[in-house]
């Protein structure tokens, strides 16, 4: 069974960040179905709440953040993505 088919995968990104763009492209190229949120395009409370959540999970505000099940990957890292996704 392919691991990524069962995981709820989330990506928190900035629309202007080249590393976020690479992560999005990598996931797309590998046919990974995921929920992508560009945090910079949110506004007000919605953005604040999500930033609090990201800081709680990662301890900082750095992008991209990829959540694969209980795994948290901060920054564009294809090796970690492959491992976490079982690719």
């Amino acid at each position, binding site marked *: 069974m392919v691991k990524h088919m069962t995981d709820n995968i989330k990506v928190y990104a*900035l629309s*202007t*960040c*080249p590393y976020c*763009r*690479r992560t999005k492209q990598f996931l797309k190229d590998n046919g990974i179905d995921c929920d992508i949120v560009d*945090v*910079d395009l949110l506004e007000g409370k919605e953005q604040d709440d999500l930033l609090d959540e990201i800081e709680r999970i990662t301890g900082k*505000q750095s992008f991209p953040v990829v959540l694969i099940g209980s795994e948290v990957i901060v920054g564009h890292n294809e090796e970690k993505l492959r491992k976490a996704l079982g690719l």
Partner: protein
Amino acid sequence: MTPSGEGRVFCPVCSVRFPPPKGVGDGEEVMCPVCGQKLLIRASADGWTGDRVGKYSDQEILDRIDAFARIRGYVFNEMKAEIIEGLIDKRRKFGDFYCPCRLRHDGEHQCPCRPTRGGDVERDGRCHCGLFWMKT
């Protein structure tokens, strides 16, 4: 017209004031010695004012980052073009050339951002976005 007293030019990008180079006068271009921004200086009764040359144009940020890297002796890597694309996208979406990898859209985070001007590259080997790198 020349400004009164010890005129200094205010850089609207990095907010420093610097003395204009000797012999440079009203209507001429100078470069901010801190961030590398090209400025057109004008004399006024209150001192020199500096207007950003090519404000908001793609060329403005290309010239600024190249000049800043030259001033500091930093180098770029293969991400340069993608990061510049991000800077231009920031200007289009948020009004100016702010760090593309940060969420902040304020004067301190105009590229080159304040942490970078303050020595992040010397400390970490690179700036937050990975645009400027120490020469190895």
